[in-house]
């Protein structure tokens, strides 16, 4: 078992190295003075200039330029943002939790809604409910996320004024960002009207989470249905049916746990599309996360922020996909011979 963990770790290190290489090459191709693009300090004083030269070794050979760049970024120094002259690391720690929060709630919603419908569709295979679920998920799969968001704003937000459509919380509630997750921060804060703030934050969350979650829901439905169908035809289900076990227990207790392995494996592949959709959702609902931050950086041509954003997002995805691989491996080797697991 430890052999797999070692392989995964080596894969992780090499993939991160390749990611840093790609961003490093991007820096080479960026227009403008490379030192400004790396450090974000527009007119450095003489002292700062020395420090920067030592940090990024721009005059050295390409290899130790790359090494200097990598050590600098790994040690958390992403330089200053050109627009706000703040250290980028602070901005990231301020904005990353907002995006992660949105992605987590959306993924939870996707799993909570997707899996039951997937199981239902597989259970009642080739019947009306199955066709209905498949065709509805096909329709929602092909709705572009930004159009969905705009329509959501138009109808739910403006025509009927039911749900707030922008921001994370009514700004009158003064909450210090301790963990960066609104709901937890409200819990921790010593606000008088805490329940009121929670309710408001919850309403602010509904629209973006549903818009973001709709696409993953259809994907989870499709994956779960396929995995369940495959699982329901295996012999041990037939044997259980032969033993007269009730269909409910068969589906919930026997088929579902086995189908979870391929489902979770494929869901972790959907992470990069989830993050892209999250950034688009943030732009539409002006959610103060990495997406809005990166988008405004693009319009201002703020290169240090762009390279930091890419490193953080891609790094995040690699870490999460490797971790989910590890969990899948640890979970299955003991229970099922690898002949069953999907490679």
């Amino acid at each position, binding site marked *: 078992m430890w052999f797999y963990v070692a392989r995964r770790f080596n894969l992780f290190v090499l993939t991160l190295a390749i990611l840093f290489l790609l961003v490093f090459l991007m820096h080479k191709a960026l227009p403008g003075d490379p030192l400004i693009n790396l450090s974000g300090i527009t007119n450095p004083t003489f002292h700062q200039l020395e420090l920067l030269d030592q940090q990024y070794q721009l005059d050295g050979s390409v290899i130790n330029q790359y090494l200097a760049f990598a050590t600098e970024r790994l040690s958390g120094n992403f330089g200053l943002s050109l627009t706000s002259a703040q250290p980028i690391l602070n901005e990231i720690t301020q904005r990353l939790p907002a995006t992660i929060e949105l992605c987590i709630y959306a993924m939870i919603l996707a799993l909570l809604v997707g899996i039951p419908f997937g199981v239902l569709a597989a259970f009642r295979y080739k019947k009306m409910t199955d066709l209905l679920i498949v065709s509805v998920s096909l329709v929602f799969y092909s709705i572009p996320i930004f159009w969905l968001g705009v329509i959501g704003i138009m109808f739910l937000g*403006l025509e009927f004024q039911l749900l707030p*459509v*922008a*921001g994370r919380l009514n*700004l*009158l509630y003064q909450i210090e960002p301790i963990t960066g997750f609104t709901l937890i921060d409200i819990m921790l804060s010593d606000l*008088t009207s805490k*329940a009121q703030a929670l309710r408001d934050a919850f309403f602010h969350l509904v629209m973006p989470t549903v818009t973001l979650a709709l696409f993953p829901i259809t994907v989870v439905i499709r994956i779960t249905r396929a995995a369940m169908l495959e699982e329901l035809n295996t012999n041990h289900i037939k044997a259980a049916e032969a033993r007269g076990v009730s269909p409910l227990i068969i589906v919930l207790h026997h088929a579902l746990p086995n189908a979870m392995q391929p489902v979770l494996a494929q869901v972790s592949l959907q992470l990069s599309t989830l993050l892209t959709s999250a950034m688009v959702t943030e732009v539409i609902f002006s959610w103060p996360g990495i997406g809005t931050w990166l988008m405004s950086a693009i319009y201002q041509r703020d290169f240090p922020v762009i390279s930091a954003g890419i490193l953080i997002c891609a790094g995040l995805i690699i870490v999460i996909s490797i971790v989910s691989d590890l969990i899948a491996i640890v979970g299955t080797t003991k229970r099922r011979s690898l002949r069953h697991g999907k490679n």
Partner: protein
Amino acid sequence: MNKISRLSTKLALVSAIFAQFGCSPAAEDNTQREQGLVYCSEGDPSVFNPQLTTIGTTIDATSNQLYNRLVEYNPRLGKLEPALAKSWSISDDGRTYTFALRDDVVFHQTKYFKPSRRFSATDVAFSFNRIITPTHPYHDISGGNYPFFNSIDLANTINRIEVIDPHTITFHLSSRDSSFLANLATDFAVILSQEYGDYLLSAGQPQLIDIKPVGTGPFILESHYKDNFIRYKSNDLYWAGAPKIKQLVYDITPKSTNRIAKIMTGDCDVSALPQSSELDVIRRNIKLELQVQTGLNVAYWAFNNQAPPFDRLIVRQALAHAINKRAIVKAVYYGSATTAKTVLPPLSWAYHRQLPIYEYNPRKARKMLADAGFPNGFEMTLWAAPAQRIYNPNAVKMAELIQGQLAEIGVKVKIVSYGWGVFMNKLNEYQYDSVLLGWTADNSDPDNFFRPILSCAALMSGNNRVNWCQPQFDQLLNAASGHTNLSQRVDFYRQAQQMLYDEVPLVPIAHALRFQVRDRTVGGISLNPYGGISFAKSHRITKKSF
């Protein structure tokens, strides 16, 4: 079966958590919501001191909220009212102004600075000397550029500021200037704290005076997250009575659709600059109230008069004929603006009615261009900032329209656009052929429309984007401001407008109406035609008095 029981307990736990969200008892006090007010502003203030800028957004966020002025202009009565100065007297030769100051005014108690003494004349001297005396320790802090005061050439008008005693101060002018008092009432002439200045100098952090402001205004700055929000706390020791609103938040939402969405869903209570395309939606919504203010502003298309071929009069006249102002007003302002004949809006008492106009005549424009040696037109750049302003809701769209109209006479236009901050810096390098800009009046004096944007003094201070300096034009302005009776001043201003018509350094396009949306439950927000919004007297109208 034990498996199923464990499953159901998990479900019960989850639903309990959600229940806690859903049914929060209505009795829970929402004082937080009642005593606060959220204002959706269209942009982030670049600095917290109005002396250093002429950008409308920064003035909205700072001058009426954080600071006070010696005198204030009351738009309804049309005359000046006492503010920090209880009373003032002008000598008969009109060159010495003495002000009697209030003695009950306290500066802000903030986290970063606790003042030990009250407001006194030394603070007034400190604030104005910073502008007029280059040797003043704070003159060059944060750029040392005071665009409004440079354009009205305050440094030469004021000879000497004399502090007589802690509550009286006299200004000795070099020559008679009838618009001096009006300029003191503008949003730029704010009073800073001299004690705070000395404190920062000793701490070696002088630039903080413009970033962490201390003033005498109704609100104190609590926190500022760039491009996100600004939070103010009420100043309970305010000399004109503590504001009813305990907490004021500026929610920065650049896109106007988002602002409308926020005000409709209750996320903010007042919203700035609604687009004219959203007016009928606002009128249909009973919860909202639309405030309309006649526009004392002008949007103009400025040529860079030094850059060829715009240094030739005939080219400028041809381009003036080539643009269809009516179409622009319909497409960009959706009809909520009037086409402009000259820089002065029709409401001003010095408006020149009989002035002829450059009517929209593409054939004539093409012929004039041919005479000027450009039979098949030429290439030119047109700069437009993506931000939204009172005088121009969508400069980029106006640029695209002009691009389309000039294409008909063979002129190929390349639109150049940057973020607002970067845009203003690059303008100072005068690399543009033409730019879409505008001006909002700061007081009722017509001089305010000519001197800050067209005078040679304005060229030095970098506010004259037309890059055009006519000494004869400046003499007209000085002569006008030298006399006090109206009829003589009107005659001088008419000659100035005639000169602008002949020279066409810029093409005035439109005077926009100014809108503001607010929730019916909010009252007391004054929409001053001459500049910044003020929340000093704002309050929540409780249900009964609705």
